[in-house]
């Protein structure tokens, strides 16, 4: 009894310490955004007079909302597209597996192992010829392709946990394949689908390689906004922190609001 309480206490301490370590950089960035440039590079201190100077400077230099709208547009758009493609794909793999299903799944995952810079030039050339450079559609397509393997994998594991009998019962009652997906599969695995979608949104929001390389001004999302405040000559930490805080704030709040859903989805099936 005593040991288990001690163990629980120890675990709590461990969990809190890990959380603090992970959260500290974000906290520090948040604080630095309210400092002056001189304070930002001075000896670290927790006590200072906060100023909004950096936020004003940052907003004066670039239009935050234009970048933020691009981020929202691209991450939600690509997630929707990935789910539209991913759900039928995962359905067929989970319920109608063939000899090659395992291989196909592994092959899809293997595309994530290639460093993106390896295909930068071919993709850039294709985008140039299709007129998709610096367009939100172009970026949406790339993010969909980027997240599709993960989306299918996650959906596949959720779907596999669903007893096959339920779908078979539906079929006995005369449901077609699409009815099976819409009226049985999707409602029953909704927590899983939601957490897959949330993860895909977060991954798209944070993606910085393709967004920096395939956009210039019109379709540039928040990652490009952050990149514009770093400087090889001159002080920039406070402004960079202010810009970064503004860039991560929406997704952080979004994460908090959907936390329950995320955790429920990720542990979905495991408790059965």
């Amino acid at each position, binding site marked *: 009894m005593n040991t288990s309480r001690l163990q629980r206490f120890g675990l709590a301490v461990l969990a809190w310490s890990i959380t603090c370590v992970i959260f500290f950089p974000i906290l520090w960035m948040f604080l630095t955004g309210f400092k002056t440039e*001189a304070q930002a*590079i*001075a000896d670290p201190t927790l006590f200072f007079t906060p100023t909004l100077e950096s936020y004003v400077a940052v907003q004066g*230099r*670039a239009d935050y909302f234009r970048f933020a709208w691009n981020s929202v547009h691209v991450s939600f758009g690509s997630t929707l597209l990935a789910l539209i493609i991913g759900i039928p794909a995962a359905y067929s793999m989970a319920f109608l597996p063939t000899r090659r299903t395992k291989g196909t799944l592994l092959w899809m995952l293997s595309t994530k192992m290639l460093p993106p810079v390896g295909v*930068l*030039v071919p993709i*850039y*050339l294709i985008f*140039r010829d299709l007129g998709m*450079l*610096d367009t939100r559609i172009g970026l949406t397509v790339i993010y969909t392709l980027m997240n599709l393997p993960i989306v299918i994998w996650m959906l596949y594991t959720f779907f596999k946990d669903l007893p096959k009998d339920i779908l078979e019962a539906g079929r006995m009652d005369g449901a077609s394949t699409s009815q099976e997906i819409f009226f049985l599969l999707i409602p029953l695995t909704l927590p899983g689908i939601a957490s897959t979608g949330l993860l895909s949104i977060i991954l798209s929001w944070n993606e910085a390689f393709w967004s*920096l*390389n395939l956009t*210039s*001004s019109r379709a*540039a999302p928040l990652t*490009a906004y952050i*990149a*514009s*405040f*770093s*400087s*090889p*000559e*001159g*002080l*920039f930490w406070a402004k960079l922190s202010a810009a970064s805080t503004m860039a991560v704030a929406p997704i952080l709040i979004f994460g908090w609001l959907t936390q329950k859903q995320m955790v429920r989805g990720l542990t979905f099936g495991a408790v059965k």
Partner: protein
Amino acid sequence: MKLSHALPVATLAVAVSASAQEITVATVNNNDMVIMQSLTSEFEQAHPGITLNWVVLEENVLRQRLTTDIATGGGQFDVMTIGTYEAPIWAERGWLVALDDLPDEYDVDDLLRPVRDGLSHDGVLHALPFYGESSMLYYREDLFEQAGIEVSEQPTWEEAREWASRIHDPGNRVYGICLRGKPGWGENMAFVSTLVNTFGGRWFDEDWNPEINSPEWQEAIGFYVDLMNNYGPPGASSNGFNENQALFSSGRCGMWIDATSAAGRIYDPRESEVAESLGFSQAPVAETPKGSHWLWSWALAIPASSERQDAARQFITWATSKEYIELVGEIEGWTSVPPGTRTSTYEDERYIDAAPFAGFVREAMENADPTDSTLEPNPYTGVQFVGIPEFQSIGTQVGQSVAAALTGQMPVEQALESAQRTAERTMRQAGYYD
């Protein structure tokens, strides 16, 4: 029937070409560029019909982004901010528009000669200098006076070491000397290359064989590591230009050898605590004065893939003109004008009065010769870099070895041996020799 269809289309086409042209300018987030961005409306008022669209990126991201776009002819940018390293290499590949027919009022002969040469390929300018810099020695006059040190007009590295030892006071968090240590071809290697040059070394012999393990390199790097370990600030291997500027401005460094373009900022009391007691001199020398201080310029170029080259040309000639310098002087103050590009800036009384370091900077820039930067002859152009595409990778890897020697991870000799092997391999792969 067909004609009646075609007519409105033709009218529309004419209307479009006469309406505003939007040009996309890619640049970095340095102070001088921030000022340029803030003057957008001045340009647009003077040039109705052209609007500016800015893409600001971090230096390394920008370099990669521009290289991809220009190599594939993506045409995403109409004006690009590049340096003296890229300009000749890109011009040689036909990626940049030649700027050989500049208007008379631009006064191309007013541009500082070494900067102009650095941005030319086959004698033709391919980028216009926005600002330029060399390197020089900054020191704290108050500390030097206390210690009774007289700074000579041309200090030597031996003297610099001796001064550092006398000022060094780590107990009060004042360090003898601050130098770049953060690895990167444009970071620590910019400084280290000038040190190696003045110690008599060079990157390559005349047949492109790397000489990084030569006695001159050993001596220079040994000197550098020794100096920094004894009289440098702690954690010097993570200090680049920005970190050192911050250290120096807050009074932590007795001496600092770095870009002349920092002078305006550390002389500005709003940004620097040592503005009152700022002293400066030429960068120290050892065996030879050749290549002891660098030459760099940030410049504006037009990619050959741009579809709006005329508008782009109007913009870059405006942003690098005498009128622009005048405009910045009037609006931002004369210490903030882009330095190191035009003789006329250095002859302007208003600038000389506001910036007492002007003469030093001009001298340093005019004496830097990228075509003759080492004691023994070399096959390359560039003082603190080697003007070949392979240098980015070689420079950064050697920079990591030098940083490893600085932190004591490996002895100097071993660090340079490994750097030499890396450089040899890269050069062999690139086909310079078998």
